[in-house]
Structure formats: C-alpha cells, structure tokens
C-alpha cells in the first residue's frame, strides 16, 4: 500500500478523498492555490503545498513538483481539473508516481468524444446518430448539419459537463452557436474540435458505474439516473432509476462492461447513456474518473468507491466480491450550487456568513464549505452535495427535502430552496423524468413569493443589531490571525 498520496483537487471532493486516506492510514498531501490556502481541504491533510495562482490546479509541473517534494507515491485527481488528462496521467507514470485512475491510453481514447463513439460502436454499443469529422471547418460542419437535419447538438470532442455544447435549432443559429461552443471548448479543454449529434427528444440520462480491479476484471455497479439537469449539468441524481428494469439493467450493465473490457479499463469509470422515451439506450460518453454523484452508488451498494480506487491503484484486492454485491434501498443526491435559479442559474459569489450543515440518519453531506469562506468566480459553483438514503424512493425524497430544509447557508445565493421545490413536484414523485425536466417544470421558478412576517422581523434584527454584524462592515478574514501570517506557507517541505 502507498505510504503517502497527494490529492490534486479542491473543495468537497478533495475533502472526501483526504478523509478516506486518513481512514486507510495513508499520509496525505493537499495542494491549494494561493486563494485556497486556508480552504477546508487545504487544512485537512497531513501536509500542504501551495501551488500558486487560482488556475494552478491545472498546472502539471506544479502538481508533480509538489508530489516529488513531499515524496508522495500516488496522485488522486478527483474529478474535473487533471482527472481526465491523459498527458498528466502519462507524466505521473514517467516520474514513477501512480495515477489513481485508468491507464492513460483509456483516458485519451475516451477523452475524445469522436474516438470514444468509434470505440463504443466497435464494442457493439448503440450510439446516437451523428457526424464526427476531426479538423472539419465551420463551413464543412454546417454542410453536414444540413444533411443530418435540425435541431442538433454541437458538442466539443474534448467536452464534458455541458461545456462547449450548444443546441442548434435552426441553420440561422449555427454560426453564433459554433463560435460560442468553440470558444468555450478552447477555454475549458484547450481543444476546440466540435462534432454534431442528433437531438433526442426528452431522453433520460442513465449512466452505469463500471470498475476494473487490479486483477483485470471489469464489472458494473448498476446505474444512476441524472436526468434532472440545468444547462446540461446535473442537479438531482439517484440510484436506482425508476426507468430501469432488472432486464434493462443487465443489458446496459453488460454493454458498459464490454466497452470497459475493450479498452483495457482499470479503476472507476462511468459509461453515460441516453434512454429514449421508447426505451432504447444510446452510448453518450465515458467518464474516466470518479463521478461527482458516486455517493448514491456507494450508499445503495454499501461500499467505498474511493477506497476501491486507491486499493486498485496499489495493485491490491478489493474488500468486496464484485459478484456478490447487491443494491439495497434508494439514494438521491442534490447538488448545492452557488447560483440564482430565479435568474437563469447565474453564478453567485460572496461570503458564507452563516452555515449549518444538515445531519440526520440516512443523510450524507459532502461539503467543501466553512463559515467565513469566500466563494469566488475562480472555480466551479458546486458547494456541497446532500445525499439521502432510505428503503424506498418516496422515503428518500422526503428525507432529502427535510435535510435541504435544515441546510442553513447565508451570504451566498444558492439553489437550496429550488432543490426542495423540485423534489416536491408531482413529476418528480412519479418518476416522470427527462433532460428537459427543469425547463418544463421549473423555468418560471421565482423563489418564495410568500414572505412571512417572522422573516421580515429577523431581517430587521440583523440589519439593526450590532451583534449580528460580524462582517457587516469589514470582513471576518481581515480580523483573522491567518492574515497576519503574510506569505508564510504552512508545512513547507522539510
């Protein structure tokens, strides 16, 4: 087993991995940007290396140097940042570091949406009709678009998380959408290659968790449904899906495993599918990393995917028998974002002035928040995940709603009220989900229209009382002893 592992990420996922390392008795190294050096994840590790400016989490050299200087033996990339960067995984291997994830070749292949579609086709998976022509100009792509017919999706070959993706309803929208998608893809992935895909009407988003163990076996751990999305980013995820029968689960699971086997997959990965209203599934893409929503699988299958990842990277056996695991109950995850659901989900920034995480039986909170911290424009607006498990979907829904109601997060605009209202919709209750769910049922969401007098009274108290004004004029950070430390870097390598 590794003696020391570096976690190349921030926020809730870095904390999640660092805690796992501690449980396993492995020494941990956190990395942080200058602005993050007192962030919760930065203080949760045995050692910390400060990398530099805000975008340093993407800096291969800085991360590798931190690993070398702290004598870490492996790097866990989390999700986002370097997690699906084949060049980085390769660079790790070259310097003798274990990259906790799949082989670089699998990352590279699946990282190209164009090549992954081809790989899926070869492995016998159904793919969505589309046009991939690497290096095609905007004009050539438009010609292909006319042939394929509108509406269609313009997607970044290197894409993910909805970045570099635009729905094009008609020919007139093509040029503008092409420019924006290309710009976004270049900014997010450093690769502006785009391709076209037929637009499916109101499909469900169903994904299969796959895993390749140290002995080369590839197996699956059921599905997650992530149909409720805004701007192509998931907000509610659950395991299992109401739309997946045991027979369909076997079919989709086997397809996902076949793809994993065909590319020599190791470690955790997710094969995403679209499930049409007619019950046909199509390969969408494969994410070669730990998924944000991995916790719902963990709760239903009662296992620790991060621990499984670390054991596998170290060449050790899994603590469970893949053939013997069985799902139990239902888990639902709600993603808490710093955004304004009443105004186009625009990102919100500010200071977390009051914070109380929910806690109750059956509820798990993976959060990167601390009272007093600043939420800035530099990073993804995901703040925390609240996951509720129960014996059935209805009970899990009620439990999650109550947990969200208990979540106190004041000072930064967020979607907690919106998530509660989404879970209260009859269409959620009946499981009538598809990827236009938010547009159809929640596009006119305005927040609370009934304002109780008690709330106004509390607001009056906060605005008039001196005791409630910690930070009303200055900020907590200014008064903090940490500031007095200046450029001192904690735990500089000894």
């Amino acid at each position, binding site marked *: 087993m590794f003696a020391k592992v570096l976690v190349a990420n921030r926020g809730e996922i870095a904390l999640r991995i660092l805690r796992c390392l501690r449980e396993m008795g492995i020494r941990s190294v956190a990395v942080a940007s200058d602005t993050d050096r007192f962030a919760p994840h930065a203080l949760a590790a045995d050692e910390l290396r400060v990398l530099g400016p805000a975008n340093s989490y993407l800096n291969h050299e800085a991360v590798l140097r931190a690993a070398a200087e702290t004598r870490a033996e492996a790097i866990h990339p989390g999700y986002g940042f370097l997690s699906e960067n084949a060049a980085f995984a390769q660079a790790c291997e070259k310097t003798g570091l274990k990259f906790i994830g799949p082989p670089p070749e699998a990352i590279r292949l699946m990282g190209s949406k164009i090549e992954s579609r081809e790989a899926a086709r070869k492995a016998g998976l159904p793919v969505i009709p589309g046009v991939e022509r690497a290096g095609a100009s905007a004009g050539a792509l438009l010609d292909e678009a006319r042939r394929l017919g509108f509406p269609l999706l313009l997607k970044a070959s290197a894409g993910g998380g909805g970045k570099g993706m635009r729905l094009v309803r008609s020919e007139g929208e093509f040029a503008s959408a092409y420019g924006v998608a290309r710009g976004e893809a270049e900014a997010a992935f450093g690769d502006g290659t785009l391709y076209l895909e037929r637009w499916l009407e109101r499909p469900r988003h169903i994904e299969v968790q796959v895993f390749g163990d140290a002995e080369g076996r590839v197996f699956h751990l059921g599905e997650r449904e992530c149909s409720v999305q805004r*701007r192509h980013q998931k907000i509610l995820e659950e395991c299992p899906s109401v739309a997946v029968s045991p027979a369909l689960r076997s079919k989709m699971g086997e397809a996902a495993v076949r793809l994993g086997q065909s590319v020599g997959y190791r470690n955790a990965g997710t094969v995403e599918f679209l499930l049409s209203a007619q019950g046909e599934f199509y390969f969408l893409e494969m994410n070669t990393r730990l998924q944000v929503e991995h916790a719902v699988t963990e709760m239903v299958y009662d296992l620790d995917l991060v621990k499984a990842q670390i054991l596998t990277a170290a060449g050790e056996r899994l603590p469970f028998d893949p053939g013997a695991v069985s799902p139990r109950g239902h888990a639902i995850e709600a993603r808490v974002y710093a955004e304004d659901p009443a105004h186009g989900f625009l990102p919100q920034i500010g200071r977390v002035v009051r914070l109380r995480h929910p806690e109750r039986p059956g509820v798990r909170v993976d959060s990167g928040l601390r009272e007093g911290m600043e939420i800035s424009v530099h990073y993804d607006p995901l703040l925390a995940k609240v996951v509720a498990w129960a014996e059935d979907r209805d009970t899990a829904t009620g439990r999650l709603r109550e947990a969200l109601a208990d979540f106190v997060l004041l000072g930064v605009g967020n979607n907690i009220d919106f998530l*509660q209202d989404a879970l209260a919709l009859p269409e959620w209750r009946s499981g009538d989900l598809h990827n236009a769910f938010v547009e159809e049922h929640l596009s006119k969401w305005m927040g*609370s229209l009934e304002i109780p007098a008690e709330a*106004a009274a509390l607001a009056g108290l*906060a*605005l008039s009382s001196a005791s409630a004004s910690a*930070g009303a004029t200055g900020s907590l950070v200014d008064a903090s002893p940490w500031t007095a430390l200046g450029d001192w870097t904690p735990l500089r390598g000894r």
Partner: protein
Amino acid sequence: MELRIASNGVEFRVQTGEGEIAVSRPDHETERLHFQALPDGTYIIEGPTESVAGYAVREGGKAWVHLKGRTYRFDVVRSSRGRAAAAPGDLSSPMPGQVQRLLVTEGDAVEAGQTLLVIEAMKMQLEIKAPHAGTVRRLLARQGQQVEAGVALVELDENAADTVPRKEKKRS
C-alpha cells in the same frame, strides 16, 4: 429604529425595540413579535400562536434570513435613490466575471437577439444579447476586463431607424 425592507418584491416596515419587533406591510395589520437571541446565532421569534427559530445575518447591506427551511434575502428600501440606475437601453452584466469576447464595435447596427459580447465566470460562458434591434452607441467593456454584476457593458440605441432621419435633418 425603523427600517423599510423588501424581499422578492414584498415590502415591509420593521420597527425594532427592546425584545420586541413591529412588522407592518400594506393591507395587513401590524404584527408585534417578541424575540430572543441565542449565543449560537439563532433567533427565537415568539409569535402570537407559535415560536420559531431562525437565522439572520447582515452582509453587504443585505439581510439573509433562514426560517422554517427557506432562505430569504432582504434589501433596504431607500426613499431617495442612492445610485443612478442604468439608463434604458443600457445592457449591464448579469453576473460578475470576465469579458471573454467582444463581438460588436461602436456604431454597429445589431438585430434583436444578436450576441454582443460573451462574459465568462466559473467556467461558464454567457452570451449578452441585444434585447431589441438598434445601434451600438457606446461600448463600455474591454476585452479581458473583470466586471461586477450590474456594471453597464453596452449602450444600445433603441432603433437604427431613429438615428438615420436625425442625421438627414441635420444635413438638410
């Protein structure tokens, strides 16, 4: 101390005193509520029928309240306008971020719905589109500039047709 505050378009007058608050709003009787502040930041509001616990903080001139599972944001209503509002025809940034790309220059005639510029924040790109056809009178944003929410980016004349006859008048 009396305050005029509003949340989501609903306005209140709140008068705070020793352990008592009076809340009034249009078409409602004034409610008198008793409160206690607990050391952990919780407030207890003792109403006529029930007592409720909530949280309230002040940040950036706003009050943030958590009560019975919901979050409310209150602004202080100012009787005299503190800051000049953006003039009609001005397009302001709906979120803080960086000006990624400028797609028009001053004097350009634009169509309704045309993308004028692109703002990026939190790895998300937002297209700022013309709400109506018109002419770009002034471009207030620069490429790469960091902008706050509410900052004017573009001044857009209502209609290109308006400006053309005016010019012709001057000529004649």
